[in-house]
Structures are given as C-alpha cells and as structure tokens.
C-alpha cells in the first residue's frame, strides 16, 4: 500500500512537471510571483513564532499584504490565461489594470494598518 502510494506520488510528480513545462511564459512569471509572496508570508510567520506577535497589527498587515497580493496575482492569472473560456473576451490590459488598482488599494490600507 505504501509502495503503491509512493509510486503514485512519483507518477503524480512527474506528470505534473511535464504538464507544467508547457505553460506559457507570462503565466510562469505570475506563478513565480505568487510563490515569492507566499514564501515571504511564511518567513514572516516563522519570525513571529520566534519573537512573539506584539504589534499584532503590524504582523497582520505584513502577512495579509503577502497573502493579498498572492491572491490577486492568482486572479490575474485566471483572467489572463488564454485557455479559460469564460474570460476569452476580457482584454489582458483590463485584467492587469484591475490587478494594479486592487493592489494599490491593498497597499494603501496596509500602510495605514502598519502602525
């Protein structure tokens, strides 16, 4: 059971990897950005675990800014991906403009909340 599970996991990994190579470059850039944002959030959480969460609003604003921008980037990816039939008549410039606007609002609120 364990062997078949590990073999399954390996198969899974390989097929995911091979499928991922074929995605367009702009989507890969967005994925990298998402990964970077989530990684930053994890570093902040680890730091909080070490030194305590005293200015809680600062901790929250830091983590939420990372998660927020990651989520918005995922939304951008959804809207820009040419294979999504629901969004085929949405111009990628409009999607990017929405992304920038939402990020602007997000970071303005974060700056107010940072304390």
């Amino acid at each position, binding site marked *: 059971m364990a062997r078949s*599970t590990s073999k*399954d996991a390996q*198969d*899974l990994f390989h*097929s*995911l990897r091979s*499928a*991922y190579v074929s995605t367009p470059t702009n989507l890969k850039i967005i994925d990298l950005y998402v990964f970077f944002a989530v990684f930053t959030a994890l570093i902040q959480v680890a730091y909080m675990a070490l030194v305590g969460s005293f200015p*809680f*609003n600062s901790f*929250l*604003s830091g983590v*939420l800014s990372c*998660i*927020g921008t990651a*989520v*918005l980037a*995922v*939304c*951008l990816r*959804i*809207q820009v991906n040419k294979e*999504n039939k*629901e*969004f085929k008549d*949405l111009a990628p410039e409009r*999607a990017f403009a*929405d*992304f920038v*606007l*939402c990020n602007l*609002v*997000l970071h303005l*609120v*974060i700056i*107010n*909340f940072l304390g």
Partner: protein
Amino acid sequence: MGGKPEPGNVSSKSESMAAKKASPDLLNSLSFKSLKLKTKQQELLLRVSILGLVYVLAFIARLFSVLRYESMIHEFDPYFNYRTTLFLTEKGFYEFWNWFDSESWYPLGRIIGGTLYPGLMVTAALIYWTLRFLRFFVHIREVCVLTAPFFASNTTVVAYFFGKEIWDTGAGLVAAALIAICPGYISRSVAGSYDNEAVAIFALLLTFYLFVKAVNTGSLSWALGSAFGYFYMVSAWGGYVFIINLIPLYVLVLLITGRYSMRLYIAYNCMYILGMLLAMQIRFVGFQHVQSGEHMGAMGVFLLMQVFYFLDWVKYQLNDTKLFQTFLRITVTSAILVGGVALGVGTASGYISPWTGRFYSLLDPTYAKDHIPIIASVSEHQPTAWSSFMFDYHILLFLFPAGLYFCFKRLSDATIFIVMYGLTSLYFAGVMVRLILVATPAVCLISAIAVSATVKNLTSLLRTKQKAPQSGSTKGLGSSKASSKVLLDQSQPVQKNGAMALLLGVFYLLSRYAIHCTWVTSEAYSSPSIVLAARGAHGNRIIFDDYREAYYWLRQNTPTDAKVMSWWDYGYQITAMGNRTVIVDNNTWNNTHIATVGRAMSSYEDEAYDIMRSLDVNYVLVVFGGVTGYSSDDINKFLWMVRIGGGVFPVIKEPEYLVNGEFRVDKGASPKMLNCLMYKLCYYRFGELVTEYGKPSGYDRARGVEIGNKDIKLEHLEEAYTTSNWIVRIYRVKPPTNRL
C-alpha cells in the same frame, strides 16, 4: 407599446405621407412625428421616471413626524449619535477619533472614539460639510433628521439594480417600489430616527448587489467595489456579522451544488481579503476578523476556495483521472485534518473567542433569558409574533413563497444568493423583532420577482389574442388551419377574461399594500417617543413635552458638574439635551455598573443613599406615568432593574418584590416594594393628587389601582422638579448632615 409589429409602423408612416400630401397641416403632423420616440427610448423614459417617482416617494413617506411635530431626533440611541456628530462637526475628525468622554459612566468614563461605529456620523458630517460648501448653512440637526429618508431613497435605487441583476428590469422596478414603502424598513428609517440602521441597510444591500455582480461577471473591479461596500457596512453597524457569515455560506452552497467557477473564486477572494483588511481599520472591530469565532466561517471558506482552485488546476494539468483521484483523496483528507486541528486548538486554547452573547442568543434564543438579563430586557430583542410579520410585510408574506417558486424555476448564481439571503434573514427575523429590518430587502426582492413574473405572464396572455387574428387574416391559410385558428379564437376570450381578472386582482392587492403601508407609517412608526401625544376629551390633540422640559430644566438649573442617576434608558438623552454627567447610559457596556444603579433603585432609602454617596450622585431622575397613563415608565420597568441588580448582587431577591408571583403597587404589595427608593421617588406626594374623576386620590392611571403607600417621607432626598404632567421627576440628593 412594444407589441405592435414592424408592418404597423410602416403602414402608419405611409398614412402620414398620404396625409401630408392631402392637407396643409403637414407641419403639425411632422412635429408630432418627430416627438414620437422609438420603443427603446420610450422604455428608458418610463423606467427613469418610475425610478424618480419611487425615489421621491421613499423620501416623503417618512416625513410624517416632521410634519406633525417638529424636526427633532427621536427615541434614545439617536441622541447619542447626534451628540457625537455634533462633536465631530465642531471639533474635527482627529478629536473625534481620540475622544474620551468623561460625561457618561461616571466615574469610569467611556472611550467613545474606540467603541462606536463611525459610519453614520461621518456620513452625516460629510453631507453637512458638502451643504456648507455649497453655501447652504443648515443646522447639523436638520441633516441628522433627514439622513435616514435620504438613504432610504438611495436604497430603492440599489434595489432596482439588484433586481435587474437577479431577474430583469421589471422585477427591479417592482422591488424599488415595494421597498420604498415597506413598513419593516420604514420603522427604523423615518425622519428623525438617526440610528445606525438608517445607513446600514443601504450599505448591506449595496454590498450584496456588488458581490452578486462580481460573481456574475468575474471582474476584479466589482469585487473591489463590494469590498468597499463591506467596509462601509462595518463602519456603520454591528450587524455586519450577518454579511461576513452569509457570503461564505453562499459560497459553500455554490461549492456543494457543483457551481464552482473561476468567477466565484475571483469575487470571493478579492472581497474577503480586501474587505477584511478595510474592516480592521475600524477600531471598534479591531482584530475580530482573525480572532473571533463569529468570523471564522469566512476564513474557513477562504482556505477551502484555495484548496478547490488548487485541485481544479491539478486536474487540468494532469488529464489523467486515476492519478487525479489518488491526489484528490490525499489532499482532501490532509486539508480537513489540518483545518480541524487548527480550529480545535484555536478554540480550546481560547485564542479564538466563542460567539458573543448578542449573536449567540440568535442561535439559541433561550440563552439570553437565563444568562444575560440585560440583553433579554430590551424590547427589541424579543421573539417576533405573527402579528408583527403581518403588520410589517402585509401581502409580501404570501408573495415571498411565490417568489421562491419562481427563483427555483430559474436557478442561477444570483437567484441562489437571494433565496439564501431571504431564508436566513427570515429565520433571524423570527428570533428577534429588530431583525425584521434585515429581512425586508430580501422579502421585497423575492416578492418583486413573483409580482413581475406573474404580471409579465398575464400581460403576454392578454397580448397574444391581438396577434392571432392578424396573422390569420394576412396569411390566408387552408381550411384545417383556419378551423383550428377559429377554435383558438373561441378559447381566447375566456383566457383573455381570466388574465384580465387576475391582472385586476394583482393591481388591487398592490393598491391595498400601498394603503396599508401608508396607514402603518402614519399611525405606528412616526412617533418621536420623546414627545407624547394623546386625544383629549373633545378629540383635540394634547402634546406631552415633559421629557424635554425636564432635560432643559437640568441644563439650566443644576451646576455644570452635577451627576445624574437614572435608569440606563435615559442616559443618552440626558447627556445630549441636559448636558450633564450620567452614571449609566444606553451603551450598557458595563453590567456591574448598571446593576449598582439597579440595586440602588430597589433598596430602602438608607442603603440607596450609601450607594449614591459612593457614586457622587447629585440628582436622581425617574419617569412616572401614573398621572397620564403613560405605560413605559420606570415602575413598569422596575422588575428588570431588580433582575439585573439581583444578577450581580444576590442581596436583591426578586420574590421579595412580588406577592404570589404578582407585581403589585396597591395596598396588597409587598413591604419591600412599598418602601424601596423607586416607589418612594415615583409616588412622592402622589397620594394627595386626584387623577381621575370619581376615583380616590392617589389613583395610578397606568397600573389602574390606588397606590398602597400614600404617606411617603423622604429623608435623604428632596424633590427638585416635577414636570407639568408628572412624567419626569427629579430629586436632589442632600449632602450628609453635619456631625455634632
């Protein structure tokens, strides 16, 4: 109007051309022809004019009390909002945000800047500053009084767009018209009712509309709009908890019914993250979005959405179902395990606080009665009776199930939302009277769908009869078709008559609804509560303005640092109009302080004097309805004082004030009742007064009995002022006698 087919237009045009050639008044016909609009423009004109009329109607339907009495603030809570708005416009935003009020809850004080929902005050202040900028120098009180009707009008516009989103423009128009006069909404938004709900219902409907629009279009900018709507709602009312639980519940229902889509992902995620961040800017809300149990549902659904998206993406990448199934199993089980463990640890360690009393009593209505008497004592928190539903909704009550039927016939993301909103809000409206207000927009929208769909079906039935003979005459068919057409023509009159009758019935129902709403608004919901009116013996109207008389006496005849003790109902009014420090007020944030006042009111005069000296009380204010028959006075509220006081100080026992479980004030009352401070203060010198012809002196008209203790002597207090109808009585606390 739009039913006439194209040949009709062409034929009328050719007729007019012939008329032009025939008569010299061709100029008249030409100008008339150019005025005649195309169908689309006619429809737009009709819609805009209907909306405009509904907008004006919503505003003027709420002006009864301004016309009958004067432009003043009603009830109790609005006086606090008025006082804070006044402070904001006088001192500016920075002072307002950091305000520590030492005039209430003496000696504790209250951090007003951090414990209120600023949306209403900031809105009124912005309107005030805009009007002043345009050189309309109105008083802030006028702005406050008319804020609620103004926002009710705006709500009708939002309801129109919402109805258009869910169903079509017809339903939107009917929804706007229904919500403009619905008594459930009017009750909390008349002119003068300057309370949080006035703008909160507008913000609620706006948030829901923008969110449904975001789910329908999948656009990030609509989701951003709904986040801002949510921010406005959080700044305006504590009832925002309803939104932050309904929307995740809606998303969950969509996920379960297999309607997961990218648009839903975009809409919910953007709204949740941005909305949560914006909401945390309000100091009163603080970190509740990540720490309180009431908000955890939203976070859980957020994480669930990430899992769904991830699974969707992996499934798309893999294109191999078997491998995907194993992956699915692993991921789902690990996600559920991790989520469950996190929730368990958070709740057990106390980091995630459980549901607070006010909202927990919505889930378990018996909770407040046993554990928190202050919440149970508020009259707005009682469960709703059937008569209230009928009174507040009228025909919408049976149009609501009809609308539900139509919604289920045409299920889409938007109709699922409105069905969920309607059902959950009706459940909560059944638990607490006050929440009928929250259910009103949903009931109006769903009923509008029923009305609009029915009227559409009936009018299309009426119109088909006109088409059939036309096509029959122009086409010239064979005998079989002609005979069938003849049969159709014969059944058409019956159908047409039935449709006509039903249509007339619908219009009759709607007109009865309008009459009922106007009557309810005029009779029941337009009283300012601070000014009482009654009919005299000859039918003339008598006004009792005792409350304001007493508060202005306080303002003008007491030292500025005097402290007034009264029951918490009147706290806001005393600080706003009397401008004196109070011990407890309507905020009810400190139960022990209120219990201390309750204990003082229920004790004998000596013990009460010790408590009053410890609180530095200079004046005591009681409300008494025995002379006028006013039934919301302090004697009728007295048992709640006993219960709340007894909840904290076991020395106050409720059975001591009752006789055989009955609350009496006449000769048969218990001795503790006859000698407690509240009884003495209310009935002092009342035994000498004859209130009604033919009844003995000291006859209490509110309770309908002759009082038991007519010979009252006060040792530590002296009467300072009694208003002209004896409704408000003020006593001065005497300083301790000199020691010899």
